[in-house]
């Protein structure tokens, strides 16, 4: 049975009436037209649907809308403030960390979450944090470079 929910998305309150077990991803995309969160697998394996829930990275395809109600939801659309890009978005642009860009919103949010927990992650920590985010175009080295840029850390010495 559909129920009414209040979702706090990107600082604004949004009302939706829906089946409580529907995924947050489909509510974001289909009901609220926030299509920056992407569908890549629907089984929690690719990270294309990554959003922030209370500042932590979450796979919105695996989160029921009822579980998201009452929490702070940040989607890629809410990251830039006053038309100023978030530093992580800026870093992705500077590092050219994309090809088709389909993984990019999820990657950006996963990096925002990572840097929120760990402002200066080392290479292994970045790899671990992003292991669940697929980039089929293979831009991982550039994403790593973007993380370094955003975190203001120099490149580790390569052997």
């Amino acid at each position, binding site marked *: 049975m559909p129920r009414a929910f209040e979702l706090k998305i990107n600082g604004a309150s949004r009302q939706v009436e829906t089946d409580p077990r529907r995924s947050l991803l489909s509510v974001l995309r289909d009901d609220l037209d926030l299509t920056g969160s992407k569908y890549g697998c629907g089984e929690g394996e690719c990270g294309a649907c990554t959003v922030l829930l209370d500042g932590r990275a979450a796979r919105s395809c695996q989160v029921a809308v009822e579980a998201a109600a009452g929490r702070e939801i940040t989607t890629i659309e809410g990251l830039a403030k006053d038309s100023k890009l978030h530093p992580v978005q800026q870093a992705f642009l500077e590092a050219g960390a994309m*090809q088709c860009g*389909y993984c990019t919103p999820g990657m950006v949010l996963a990096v925002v979450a990572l840097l929120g927990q760990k402002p200066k992650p080392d290479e292994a920590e970045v790899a671990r944090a992003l292991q669940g985010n697929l980039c089929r175009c293979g831009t991982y080295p550039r994403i790593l470079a973007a993380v370094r840029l955003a975190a203001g850390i120099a490149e580790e010495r390569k052997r």
Partner: protein
Amino acid sequence: MNERLPAGFDLEPERYELQEAPFLDLELARRDFFKAAGGGLIVLLFLPAAAAAQEAGGGRRGRGFGGRMPAEIGAWLHIGEDGAVTSFTGKVEVGQGSRTSLAQAVAEELRVPADSVRMVMGDTALVPFDGGTAGSQTTPAMVPQLRRAAAAARELLIDLAAREWKEDRGLLEAAGGKVIHSRTGQAVDYGKLTRGRKLVEAVGAGAALTPASAWKVCGQPVPRAGGVDLVTGRHRYASDQRLPGMLYGKVLRPPAFGASLVSLDAKEAEAIEGVMLARDGGFAGVAAPSEREAERALAALKAEWKTSPQTAAKDLFEILKQGPGEGRDREGRPEQERGSIEEGLAAADFRLESAYTVAYIAHAPLEHRAALAEWKDGALTVWTGTQRPFGVRGELARALGVPEERVRVIVPDTGSGYGGKHTGEAAVEAARIARAAGKPVKVVWTREEEFTWAYFRPAGLIEVRSGVKKDGAITAWEFRNYNSGASAIRPLYDIPNLKVEFRPSRSPLRQGSYRALAATANHFARESHLDELARQAGIDPLELRRRNLKDPRLLAVLAAAAERFGWGRARAAGRGFGIAAGFEKGSYVAYCAEVAAAAATGKPAPEVKVERLVTAFECGAILNPDNLRNQVEGAVIMGLGGALFEAIEFEDGRILNPRFSEYRVPRFGDVPVLDTVLLDRKDLPSAGAGETPIVGVAPAIANAIFDAIGLRLRSMPLLKSRG
């Protein structure tokens, strides 16, 4: 545009300078173009007749610009009355950076910054006909066309200024979006020159292009066009499109390949409120106001299927060896033959025979096949992600029985393709369901559908027989590829006795293009086999290649990779080095890999970690070094998947691993230290680069594994045993 205007030639109201007579009603086209683009200056680039015929598949069928443009037009560009530059091409952006590099090409010749050029791509109502974004053709074919059109536009703008100022055009030059007088410094904007005009210029192949040594915009690491829309999530891919009143479509899939629909009971599904059913022969689909309702309706369809026996995976390579089946040529035709294999083998000091296999793999683009279809007054518009907008337009026209002129395909920049989006399955499905539903319908394939109902890179079996002398000279080379394809099947090595052939087979799974096609399989077999020969003859694998090579470009990438890698230095215990080289589609690549490997007890496949991969790549003059590096690294990383662990598993016509949890693709932690050396050959034309860097990743790693632990792996993926 080689000839200049005679003095006093009247430019107004328009001028047609044709080097080849096109069959185009220019007056009609003119109206259409200006209607689409507004006033100003339009340059149409005509292809040489042969190229045009090829593009159009030999006829006039493939017309662009909504069916009103002849196949002879390769590209067009428009300079608006405000000076805005818009360029139109049938190529699409699928992540390979074409939107950026094409804009650079136009900008270079027009002497404007790259970000001031807008590219309109992949909309069949606006762009010239194009055979598709495939085969690394965007750079070698479309870049020169757009440059010619832009160079012609620049010259025409100079003519306009010369006429206005009554000056010798030799004193004028174009720079920064203006025509400037070199003596007086007087300058005029392009927009000012085109204001109030409707000029059409038709040009052939003659316009002179700026040489690479003088490039200012090309050759620069121009950032990706539209990057801000990607990092903010604003860009709408096909799967993000929506229209008012749109329904969500789902397609009924057979339980296995080769199954046919016997009967369908849709009563229950149709009873769900808002659900529409679409049936057309063996096709059945549903549409509903939400994805979830569409899923429910799909689940409520009661279908009866007739299945037929399908190939068992264990028989795959046997079956591929049997050839194409009844009535088809079983022998295949040699791709290349010279000398005598038997004599070459007799002259050898060492002889070797081995067989290599490659598995079916999936493209698995992160954006699924998706399409939104809308019918209006019998005309169809479809937004979809594809590498072949005109091909899909044809598919739609045929499947739905409408003329191509009534079909418009719009391709938003797409969430990648890798050769996997040449077809329009989702487009046809959405159009069918939309017609039945009488409303716009969006179909987005699930990951499972994507893994099952798309097509695969062909599996293949490759048999090689060869001989080598003690000094490393290869005397015989017999190479036969079953099923996977003939791309890059011919070696660049100088071998006196040679027979190379491809034999098509009846593939049990649906197969098609994949980044670099069979070049990857053929390089895997060839470069692995060379390593085996080197080991037999006791010669360093790099040295063996050098001894049998004359091609200076291949030698140059080999030398560059070996130098960067430090080929020949000592290895630590459990470490191995491997080398491989290749050539395809006009570009050259060489790799050196370092792996850490250990034989795993009780398992046929060893434990392997790729530690470092050096890639040296050369594709002529580099258009955009940053984008090129991105492409090379991306292809190498994608290649790691096919080399190490990607394989489609199947049984009884079913795909057994249709999910990312079961089909492993490269992830962050799989990426070794990558070292990419780009060789810039300003003296050579630019070739495409999206494909070739993938071809030799697997043999470089396989050779390194052998070097580390003496185990020769002859199947891709290397780390999956074939049981």
